Each structure stands twice: as C-alpha cells, then as structure tokens.
C-alpha cells in the first residue's frame, strides 16, 4: 500500500461512529421497556465483542474455527476468580481473560507454521482438548459437566429492570470500546502489517514485517477480547457456566456474524451480529419449530451468495459514501 493510501486509511474517522453507536444505544435504552428486547440487544453487544475478537485474528489471516476456547476460558477464569477468591465480578471480568490471552499466545505459537484450513482445524481441535481438560483434570475446580454459577455483575438489592438496563449499558460501552480498539489497530501501522500478512506472508516478511510477532500479537489480543466477552456473558446474561461453551456452536457464531456484516472491517461484526441475531429471534418467534431454522439457513445462504463482501459494504454502497474504497479493502 502506498504511503498516501495508508494515510487515507488512517484518517478514517472512528470516534464519530463510536459516539453515534453510544447515542443510538442510549436512546433505545431510554425508550424500550420490554425486557426481552433489552436482553436480545445485550446479547448482540456481547457477541459483537466476541465477533470483533475473531475479526482481529482474521485480519492477520488467522481464521480460527475454535474461538470458543477463548470465550470459555475467559468465562471460567472470571467466574472462578469471583467465586473462589471473592474478587468483584467487575474486576474479575478483566483479570480472568488474561488466561485466554495466554492460551491465544500459546496456540498461535504452536500454529506459526500453519495456515488456512490447517490453522482452522487445529484451533478447532484445541476447543475439544480444552473441554476435556476443564472437565477431567480440573474437574474438582470446575464442577465437571454441571458447571458453576456466576456472580452477578450488578447486584445489591436492585430491581430486575434496573439490573437489565445496567447490563445493557455495560455491554454497550464495552462493545464500543472493543470497536475503537479494533478500528485503531486496523488503521495503525501494525494493522497494515497484519493486513500484509493476511494477503501474503512471504511478501510481508520480505517487506520487513515481523510476521511471527504480529501473528502472536493478534491472537493474544483476540484471546483477551474474546475472554472479556465470555466473562461478561456469564456475569450478566447466563449467570452460569458449563463445559458446553466449548461446543461447536460458540465457535461458529463469531464467524457467522462477522462475515454477514463485513470481514476485516471494524464495523462488520457489530452490524452482522445485530442483523443476523434480530432476524434470527424474529424468525424463531414468527415461524417456530424446525421450519424457522431452515428459513434462517436459507437467508444466510442468500446473504453470502448475493453479497459475499457483507452487509456493511452493501450498506456503504447504498449510502453512496466510501463504497469503492471499502469494497477494495474487504476483498
């Protein structure tokens, strides 16, 4: 990328977008009183953080098929820190994810020579292995398949409605935070290095990019952010954690949401999680049963075959701004 192009990328304004998201989220919180809607949106924010973490790793060409490893380890570490050591959940939520960060570093180190499918399959394999480790050798700590109850993030005699709003606002704030983190990273010099590694590792190395350091950095950061999402989820929405979190489903979500929204674009995971999840909940209620899931699958298939670059690029094109440049970046 030429210096001018790099400067143009860097000049993209992320703060106004972040502010707009905060304001929009705040307005919704002020207007909507339906618990169910707030809960779905809280889920959207938390899983947008999770999808963003996957997006960060994907930006360096490390397409993980086992991100549930980090989601689950973050949740377990945080729940254990809060439950066994008595740390406040608000603190444990940020200390616990150091464990998945470390796991991200270790897995990235082991997978340095692997790319594409090989990388994806090994990351998937680690999810199955970590699940067994959590259940068997550490079963005494983790209560095996029954799992553990998680301390609430907001407690202390508040009304259920207040807690729901507080959970919603916390998730919103952290999602915007993860957005700023991802946007800053992707628009920075390191972000360009990661993009170069994604495009062609050999060319990147020849151009002076330290491939090893950048790959390790991206996966460590990704592991941490995914861990925060997992911890947040268990301290707010699920209030419980079990080894089921290391299943296939939780590794699929970030991939689904990010690609639907826009791969390797900081706004992509957020838009994708919102649109896919809201449609999903609507279909489940409007159609019900197996038919609704068939319809959802067909809709996803139509999205990807018609707009392979994701909904964000589509929206950007429709809005008529920045279309061609984003399209080029997303390719």
């Amino acid at each position, binding site marked *: 990328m030429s210096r001018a192009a790099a400067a143009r990328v860097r000049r993209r304004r992320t703060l106004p977008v972040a502010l707009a998201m905060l304001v929009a989220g705040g307005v919704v919180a002020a207007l909507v009183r339906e618990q169910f809607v707030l809960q779905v949106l809280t889920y959207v924010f938390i899983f947008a953080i999770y999808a963003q973490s996957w997006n960060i790793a994907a930006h360096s060409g490390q397409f993980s098929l086992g991100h549930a490893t980090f989601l689950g380890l973050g949740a377990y570490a945080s729940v254990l820190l809060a439950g066994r050591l008595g740390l406040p959940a608000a603190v444990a939520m940020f200390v616990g994810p150091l464990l998945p960060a470390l796991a991200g570093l270790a897995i990235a180190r082991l997978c340095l020579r692997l790319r594409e499918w090989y990388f994806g399959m090994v990351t998937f394999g680690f999810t*199955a292995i970590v699940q067994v480790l959590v259940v068997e050798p550490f079963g005494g700590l983790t209560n095996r398949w029954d799992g553990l109850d998680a301390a609430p993030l907001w407690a202390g005699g508040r009304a259920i409605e207040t807690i729901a709003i507080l959970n919603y606002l916390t998730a919103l704030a952290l999602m915007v935070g993860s957005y700023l983190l991802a946007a800053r990273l992707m628009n920075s010099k390191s972000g360009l290095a990661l993009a170069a590694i994604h495009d062609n590792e050999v060319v990147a190395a020849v151009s002076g990019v330290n491939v090893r350091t950048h790959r390790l950095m991206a996966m460590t950061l990704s592991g941490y952010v995914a861990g925060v999402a997992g911890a947040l989820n268990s301290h707010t929405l699920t209030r419980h954690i079990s080894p089921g979190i290391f299943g*296939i489903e939780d590794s699929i979500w970030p991939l689904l949401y990010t690609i639907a929204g826009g791969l390797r674009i900081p706004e992509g995971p957020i838009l994708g999680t919102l649109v896919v999840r809201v449609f999903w909940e609507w279909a489940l209620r409007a159609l019900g049963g197996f038919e609704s899931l068939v319809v959802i699958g067909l809709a996803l298939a139509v999205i990807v*075959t018609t707009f392979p*670059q994701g909904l964000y690029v589509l929206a950007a094109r429709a809005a008529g701004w920045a279309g061609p440049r984003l399209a080029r970046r997303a390719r």
Partner: protein
Amino acid sequence: MGLDAASLLQVLVWGLVVGSIYVLLATGLTLIFGVMKLVNFAHGELMMWGAFLTILIAQSTGVNPYVAMIGSTAAVGLLGVAIERLGFRPLRGTAKINEIFLSIALILVLQNALARFFVPYFRENAQIRTPYATEYFSLGLVNLRYDFVILLAVAWAITFGLWFVLFHTAPGRDVRATSQNRAAALLMGIDVRRIDMLCFGIGSALAALAGSLYGVVNPFSPYAGTIPAIKAFAVIILGGLGSVPGAVLGGLLYGVVESFGTFFLGGSWRDAIAFVLLIVVLMVRPQGIFREGA
C-alpha cells in the same frame, strides 16, 4: 476391564469399522477439496440424510437396507450436484471463508429440514435394522457381526472402485488433472465446471453411503453427522488436503487410534484424542502426511 487379547481384538475390529466410515467420508471430502479447494462442513448432514433415506426406502418398499442404500446414495448425490450449482459455484473467486459460511448455512438448512421429517417418526434416535443384526461369525477369539463384515466389504469395495476410476480411466484422469492445476486442465480442454459438479456429486454420495453404514452400527439423529464430518475433515488435513491415499490412511489411523484411546483413557477423551493426534502430526509435518494434491 481385562487387558486380554480378545478384548484388544474387539477394540481393533471396532476401530477398523469406525475407520472405514471415516475413510468414506474423508475420501468424499478430499475429492471435493482436490478440484474445488473448498470444504463443505455440511458433509455430515448429507451423511444423515443418506441414513434417513435408507430407512425410508427400506421401510416403504420392504427391500433389504443394503439394497435401499443404492437409492439413498444416488438421491443424496443429486442433492450434492444441486448444492454445488446453486450454492458454491456463485462463491468462486470470493474470500475462502465465505465457503465456510455457506456450509454453516447449509448445516442449518439440511439438519432442520431432516429433523422436520425425522422427529415426528423416530423422536430422538433411529437405527437401520438389517436382517443379520443378531448373526455372528466365530473367529476363535472374537465374534464378528455379519453387519461388520458387510460394512467393511462395501466400504473397501467402493474405495478401491474409486481408486480404479481415478487412476485408470479417462474421467479419473480429468479429475486428477483439475486437482493438480485447474488452469492448465482448462487449457487442455477439460470442462472443469463439470468436474466440480461431478466430484461434488460423488463426494456427497459417498457421505450418504457412509451415513447409511453408520446407521447400521450406531443409533443416529439428525444431529449425529456434525462430529464425524469434522473428524473426517481432520482426517484429510492429517493425510494432506486433496490426497486420496492420505484420506484412506488417515481415516483408518483415526478410527483405530480413537478406538484404543477411548478404551484406555475413557469416553470423555474420545473426541479430544483425534485432535491431539492431528496437532502432533501437524507440528512435525505442517502439510499433512501426503503433500496437497497428490
């Protein structure tokens, strides 16, 4: 649990049976990967459609389930052709990860469409009942179920048949050429899109056959295909993507290692063992046992 020769032999036989099912699944996946460079994660759902259609045909017409498999295999093969035409072909040339996305969407569609018909009839689980379910060969140390023998014979006859077609016939040569170098194959006048369709169809048909055989030895549900398909994917990575010998060797190795691993370490470890093996092999040989496209 005794460590006598008889139980070890039983474990080995079970490993070979499971391994042969992996071989069929993995050969289909690797055939598709070879020419199209994509992995259809919904392979396991095609597998379960195969098993379900086999029961459906066998029950409605009263034919032997092993004969019914011919019909279900052909039907799922045609379904595979449709999926390739309508789904994967439009994605050619876009980001690789989009193909994973599409196959996840296909999992949702195929799994729930199957459950829609399956659950009212069978509730949770079904199994294919063959006329030989209670008959055994006695081989001294172990009793060998008739079904195991038939399963092994069918699986290996198909595998060798496929090998013969690939390496000793003109269409097989076209498939190998496309797998080795798509552009060059196109320049030599091979209709690579037809090869894509053909391989996707055959791969899907192999999945259906694997599913039907799986349904003979295991109870199954619409959701039972996901894990075997992912393991088959691990098998072709272990063997080297696109390599048919790699898929055969990898599949057998997986079945046997998994069977012994579960026997010695316990059931919780069953799924993890396969991946430990994969990771160890890839640390030593990042390209799998055989090189890509062999």
